[in-house]
């Protein structure tokens, strides 16, 4: 039927129905169309082909589906960032050589170690508790050192109470309010000692519901510097960011900024350091501004260094005391 049409005419007809001709081409084609009956039939057939194919158009994805894809993407990118962020041992070695802190290194190390030991002591203090509220059975279990048997009951948090289940001969359940000292101490213990990262993460998450306290701060610093799980370190440092950035926190942040393999943790350390910059940060920032694998962290370190050069002619003087 369409043998009377050549390929050029057919192509122009296809482009015409698809609205893909230029104005000139369209005028020319329409002129030809009025005179050619075969071409008119051909165009009609093409138009109906397009009409039919429009029925086959896929529906628009709904917002819930898109949101679930966004969440999945977020998880994929986080996993990718974790893989990428490891500093090579060579760079770490260079960092150690290049770093020249105005404060002697042993002072930094000592303050961080004190924080760590203090955190441990807090937990050990269960050995002689003088608490009236919890049952005697819990105390006995604590004394006997069967800490590994402590779990979170249900989701851990219920009606503003933190609930623990203790697997023992009695299968106890313990619940206490946020300001209950035994509860916070149990959270400290789980965060610092439990083998299960899920429980450690739950513990640090629940700690954010408790009142900020010196003891909590020390435990969080310990977790930040020692936990092998980046999620727990990240949660710890974010919780630490709610505290006034004193010297111990700043020292821990410097160590994290230089050594932690996780970019998100290092970024959080940078957030805290930016709140109250001191001149003692300069050497660490100089190293990070050059060596960090993450451009954004390098840029922020450079920005902070610029802040020092503008405001502090003598880098050995602290801006905020």
């Amino acid at each position, binding site marked *: 039927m369409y043998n009377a049409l050549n390929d050029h005419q*057919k*192509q122009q007809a*296809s*482009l015409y*129905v*698809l609205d*893909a001709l230029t104005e000139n081409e369209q005028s020319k084609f329409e002129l030809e169309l009025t005179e050619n009956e075969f071409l008119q039939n051909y165009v009609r*057939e*093409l138009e*109906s*082909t*397009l009409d*039919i*194919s*429009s*029925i*086959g*158009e*896929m*529906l*628009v*994805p709904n917002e819930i*589906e*898109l949101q679930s*894809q*966004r969440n*999945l*993407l*977020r998880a*994929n*990118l986080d996993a*990718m*960032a974790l893989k990428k962020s490891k500093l090579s041992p060579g760079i770490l070695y260079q960092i150690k050589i290049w770093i020249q802190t105005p404060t002697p290194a042993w002072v930094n190390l000592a303050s961080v170690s004190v924080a760590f030991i203090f955190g441990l002591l807090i937990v050990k203090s269960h050995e002689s508790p003088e608490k009236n509220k919890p049952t005697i059975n819990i105390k006995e279990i604590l004394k006997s050192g069967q800490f590994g048997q402590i779990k979170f009951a249900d989701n851990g948090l219920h009606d503003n109470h933190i609930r623990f289940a203790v697997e023992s001969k009695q299968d106890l359940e313990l619940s206490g309010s946020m300001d209950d000292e035994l509860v916070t101490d149990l959270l400290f213990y789980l965060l610092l000692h439990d083998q299960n990262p899920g429980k450690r993460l739950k513990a640090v998450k629940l700690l954010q519901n408790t009142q900020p306290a010196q003891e909590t701060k020390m435990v969080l610093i310990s977790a930040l510097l020692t936990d092998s799980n980046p999620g727990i370190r990240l949660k710890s440092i974010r919780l630490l960011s709610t505290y006034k950035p004193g010297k111990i926190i700043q020292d821990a942040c410097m160590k994290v900024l230089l050594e932690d393999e996780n*970019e998100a943790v290092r970024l959080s350390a940078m957030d805290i350091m930016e709140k109250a910059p001191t001149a003692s940060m300069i050497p660490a920032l100089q190293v990070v501004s050059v060596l960090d694998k*993450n*451009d*954004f*962290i390098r*840029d922020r370190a450079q920005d902070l260094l610029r802040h020092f050069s503008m405001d502090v002619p003598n880098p050995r003087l602290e801006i905020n005391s």
Partner: protein
Amino acid sequence: MENNIKSLILEAQRGNTEAFHELVSFYDERVMILALQLTRDKQDAEDLYQEVFMKAFKAIESFRLESEFFTWLYRITVNSFYNLQRKASRIQQQESLDPEKESTHNIADETMSTSEKSEIRSAVSKALSQLPTQQKTVFVMKHYEGMKIREISNILDISDGSVKRYLFRAMEKLRPVLKEYRYV
């Protein structure tokens, strides 16, 4: 380019993942629609979506602000689709898949009101799946996405003439296949 988008791109290029996620939420619906049109399969479209944005995240430093961000994303989408098609065709060759299997891909939405529509949709999907990848891509971009020839040629990095030829060939193949549904 809007200033807001531009600043998000700059932030994302500095490694700010939140800025990148914000960019994703601006553009992902259009990417998903294109992915659905190209793959005609929800699961494949979701895989394509993830691949596109993972690639975009890795390569965002190389994006130059003078071009359109969406055009760039489109190009990644189409290239990723080509890669998927190549992989699929290799697997098909290796496993000697039943050619009927393609038609079992469930692209028909459950909410379709009539069986006729469902039948037509299935036929269109089948017809599109039988087109060579480039013809299908160009047809989808023109007919479903309403893009201009110049935009398509820019994204696919081919000449305007090639785009027109692919369109023509696609139409030539679809016309007889869909002819029987003309009066439904």
